């Protein structure tokens, strides 16, 4: 698993992909940080964090699009699947590599907090809640993105599908409100990423949210394993 994590991370930086992802995240993150926090003379980073959701919708599919699709296209998955290593270890290796890359992205928010602390001490507890929130949200989106990448040979298809899922999650609440059937409406708002994430940005460390995102992560890593298991048997 460590070998896969290492290779994946190196491969992000052996092409422009890794640098572009980091640069894009830092530029747009910085923009939101300036617009919602510095320009308003507030130490509250919650607005910055809640706006970062939109960036994630585009950044994460790019982060995950090639995880498996490229392996399938180049037939390098044969090396992975015939190596003495379990499918779960392969999927987790890929997953953690993307999560680590994602951590490189969101570490910039720590710098925002440090910048704020020069003016006035920010509420570190709220910051921690925000950080955990964005970490969990991203991890869940990465799991979904990885799954999408495992069912196609095309990076572009994987990326577009990932963006569609992300946008759907962004609007899930509005969709839920406009559905008149009660139980569907309730169900949709229960699976709305935005709903759970907003709690974190308000500084609410909800167990619901933590469990929800963790379940999504586990579920989609599991689905990814199943995709390869199924491919083997079909």
């Amino acid at each position, binding site marked *: 698993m460590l*070998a896969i994590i290492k290779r994946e991370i190196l491969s992000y930086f052996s092409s422009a992909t890794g640098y572009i992802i980091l640069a894009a995240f830092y530029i747009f993150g910085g923009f939101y940080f300036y617009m919602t926090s510095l320009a308003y003379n507030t130490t509250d980073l919650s607005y910055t964090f809640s706006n970062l959701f939109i960036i994630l919708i585009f950044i994460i599919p790019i982060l995950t699009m090639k995880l498996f699709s490229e392996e399938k296209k180049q037939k390098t998955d044969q090396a992975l699947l015939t*190596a003495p*290593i379990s499918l779960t270890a392969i999927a987790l290796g890929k997953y953690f590599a993307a999560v680590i890359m994602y951590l490189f992205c969101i570490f910039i928010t720590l710098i925002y907090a440090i910048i704020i602390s020069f003016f006035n001490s920010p509420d570190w507890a709220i910051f921690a809640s925000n950080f955990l929130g964005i970490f969990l949200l991203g991890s869940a989106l990465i799991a979904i993105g990885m799954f999408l990448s495992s069912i196609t040979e095309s990076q572009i298809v994987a990326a577009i599908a990932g963006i569609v899922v992300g946008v759907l999650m962004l609007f899930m609440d509005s969709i839920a409100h406009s559905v008149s059937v009660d139980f569907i409406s309730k169900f949709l708002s229960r699976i709305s990423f935005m709903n759970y994430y907003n709690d974190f940005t308000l500084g609410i460390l909800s167990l619901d949210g933590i469990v929800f995102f963790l379940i999504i992560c586990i579920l989609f890593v599991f689905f990814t394993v199943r995709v390869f298991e199924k491919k083997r048997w079909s």
Partner: protein
Amino acid sequence: MVEIKNLSKKYGNKNALCDINFSLDDGEVLGFLGPNGAGKSTTMNIITGYISSTTGTVTVDGDEILENPIAVKRKIGYLPEQPPLYADMTVKAYLSFMYDLKKVKLNKKQHIEEICKLVKIDNVYDRIIKHLSKGYKQRVGIAQALLGKPRLLILDEPTVGLDPNQIVEIRNLIKTLGEKHTIILSSHVLSEVQSVCNRIIVINNGKIVADDTTSNLSSDFSTENRLILSVEGDKDKILSELKSILGVKNVTVNKLGSDSAAEYTVIYDKNNDIRSTVFSKMAEINCPIISMNSNNITLEDVFRKLTSKN
């Protein structure tokens, strides 16, 4: 070392493999021969655990692939039809990654260097894989299969798409590897299998149609041999002398060769090697033999017969 029993594979309704049975002893070099789409790659993919069989078992050294996949995979070095190379890595980084992936427990640097020397890629060690020629890519593919000194090597069409020089080099390499490893090699090039393997399995439409040693396979298929001769001297005299030899069934004159030599085709019973008799008879009548070729029925003929039957 390898035991394959009742192996079948269905893709939807299509039978890709139908009740394949064979076993392989330590040190054997097995050629897996068949036309495209016969089921060679499918069989290899099942043995290596890349795909699963619909029914049947594959046992490598006592471990079954479905019950104990990791133990089996550890014993196998696999070169798929398309070498699984990460184009953006250097040869060094790639082999290092594959070494870690396979959890090999040897002296890493030394082991990788040894393999690179053996497959002659030490001069491209620091180059990025996508910039390598096809021959070199194939070698890097073989190098990754050799990592961890696996006892069983499975090579799926290792010489496809290479130029004639590269083909000879890779074949020689496989011959060298055959001294230390058990090898299953697939190919649709007959001369390749003939030159490298000591046993051949011919597969067609997912079924084994022949399983024998290379020489037995070619000899089983004909009761007669052909001899092509160029002899100088009087045609009629030579013809009558040739026809008088025991075992000769037919003699024809092909054409007048260069100078005064003519070419003759002699068909004779394969159990009766007439070559030395021909030599002495021609010497007796003072007609020098310029050339003499024994033209056995080739594996090509066997192959065509076997695979066109069904």
